């Protein structure tokens, strides 16, 4: 039994200019103890995916238009808001990007952890405080009894991020979703937080969905990777396989445009053009405008998801039956 199954999920938003679809038919699944990396550029639909799983899409104009999201064999799209509220925070927690905006500047950080915990678990205040301090200590926060009574502005960025992670972990969730948790941090602190995630997942045997645009973090931390582009999953598979042998032209290009040590001069390769915005997603394959291998079929037909031999799933005509080199 997979912990979470996202099956062919599409999301639509009503806007003034009509209905847009930031997610179209994405699928992936994650098991306990697994770290899944969701990678893509701005506008690829990473954060919308997180919102859809958490049931936090803006309720006035956003909805999951098709597909299934199953958490431990329970269909999250079929349950009531009250039931969802019991899962959200209890069983699935979300850690958002900027630690400063997730913390209220006028309350002590400890009280904020306890408040969240007592929303979800029936527990006496004293016990909640003890549990919060324990979680804080286990996350490597020095003098957690003292830090408990401090305000967010008294803490450094790395400590604030640890507090936010503590809030997410306090209710003992089975699944943690971290939306760009290291983007706002310095590199030396980022390395510490990544290590912390690795340890936490192993100790608690939980699932972690790591949303990031940093392929370096993915390759160091994750077991599987899901590459997203313009609302589609273009490639997914084991991190080792995908990074050693990227199949989709977008994954290949993405790996080539990151500077690395020891790279020969002038060997950086940019991807031409820009990520399309959600109202201007092109027809056919959504990557075709920027793809160097583009063929006429890519403009007209959306590619199907294909199974490659090494467990990689890729969405590209190149590997399909209709591909002709000479076209």
């Amino acid at each position, binding site marked *: 039994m997979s912990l979470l199954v996202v099956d062919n999920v599409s999301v639509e938003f009503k806007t003034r200019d009509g209905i847009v679809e930031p997610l179209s038919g994405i699928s992936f699944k994650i098991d306990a103890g697994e770290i899944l990396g969701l990678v893509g550029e*701005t506008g690829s639909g990473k954060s919308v995916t997180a919102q859809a799983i958490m049931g936090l899409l803006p309720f006035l104009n956003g909805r999951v238009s098709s597909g299934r999201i199953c958490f431990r064999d329970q269909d999250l799209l079929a349950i009531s808001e009250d039931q969802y509220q019991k899962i959200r925070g209890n069983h699935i927690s979300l850690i958002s990007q900027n630690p400063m905006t997730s913390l209220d500047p006028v309350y002590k950080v400890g009280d904020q952890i306890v408040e969240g915990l007592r929303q979800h678990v029936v527990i006496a205040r004293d016990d909640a405080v003890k549990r919060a301090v324990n979680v804080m200590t286990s996350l490597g926060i020095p003098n957690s009894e003292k830090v408990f009574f401090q305000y967010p502005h008294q803490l450094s960025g790395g400590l604030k991020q640890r507090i936010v992670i503590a809030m997410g972990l306090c209710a003992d969730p089975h699944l943690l979703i971290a939306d760009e948790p290291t983007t706002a941090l310095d*590199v030396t602190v980022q*390395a510490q937080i*990544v290590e912390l995630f690795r340890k936490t997942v192993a100790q608690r045997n939980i699932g972690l969905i790591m949303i990031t645009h940093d392929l370096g973090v993915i390759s*160091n931390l994750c077991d599987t990777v899901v590459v997203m582009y313009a609302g589609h999953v273009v490639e997914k598979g084991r991190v080792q396989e995908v*990074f050693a042998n990227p199949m989709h032209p977008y994954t290949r290009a993405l790996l080539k445009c990151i500077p690395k040590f020891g790279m020969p001069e002038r060997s950086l390769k940019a991807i031409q053009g820009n990520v399309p915005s959600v109202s201007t997603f092109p027809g056919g394959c959504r990557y075709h405008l920027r793809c160097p291998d583009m063929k006429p079929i890519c403009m007209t037909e959306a590619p199907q998801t294909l199974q490659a031999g090494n467990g990689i799933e890729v969405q590209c005509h190149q590997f399909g039956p209709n591909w002709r080199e000479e076209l």
Partner: protein
Amino acid sequence: MNSLVEVRHLSKFFPVTGGLMQRRIGAVKAVNDISFDIYKGESLGVVGESGCGKSTLARLILNLIRPTSGHVLYDGQDVNRISKTELRELRRKMQMVFQDPHSSLDPRISIYRSLEEVFTIQKEKLSRPKINERILELLGMVGLKPEHCRSYPHQLSGGQKQRAVIARALAMLPEFIILDEPTAALDVSVQAQIILLLQQLGDQFGITYLFISHDLALVDYFCQRIIVMYLGRIVEITPADLSRQKPMHPYTKVLKESVFVADPLAEPKAPRIEGDVPSPFNLPEGCVFETRCEYAQNICRKESPALRQTMPGRFVACHFPLIHAMEDPSCLPVDAK
């Protein structure tokens, strides 16, 4: 090599006030007694974590803020001592590109007018058709289309906005451009486009760059030399190509090892350093890096090490520099062989 910019014992302390009377209770030493040269035609990188004084340094070099002590010589002229008219002349030669292209452009005026302004505030006025021609030429140089000049900033993507900002910086054909994290707000695919554009423009016009970033791998790729800063001090100056040049300062080593490489075969590594950068208000007494350094000895807690040359082109401020670079001749910089 000819120096374009010479920085000598430059310091900038920002006063901190407190209490009822807002009395001065201390100072943040943002830039603390640093000296280096920028050679003509090179790209010099400055890396460091937040709060290390990178951006303050850029502002000091352009004389946007006045230093507490020390001076900056541009082509032999002290930028803090020259008259206002001379400074205006000098400003044409040095430009800056900031991190966030969105806040660098006026949201209420079109790209055309943003660029036009650069020409109209100059003493010798160009004719209208001449300006028009120049603007279209500039847009072409940075890879924007002529129709983009009618656009307003909000109609452009992040990458296009940064291109417009670069076009504006190029308008007066400067010799020297400071790039303060020019790609930090952009996606990786767009970052690569901007980096390639900057390199091509640098070659074409012989521009000297000072490239400020927190991304060591990016600086290593873009620059010929790298300055590593920590808490307002230079800890190391090294030629780029850090895969061959082994870091000599423990901080540079940590910084390099903290960069995640997109290679799943690389061993997952334990973080090499604990804790955060200390506040620049409360600097450690000896070496600035002493609180986080794994090699720290007693002397490091008492005495601050001076920046000294260990071999041609390499400077390090450490009591115990990592000497492997000297043992292995293949690590020597090219001109030292």
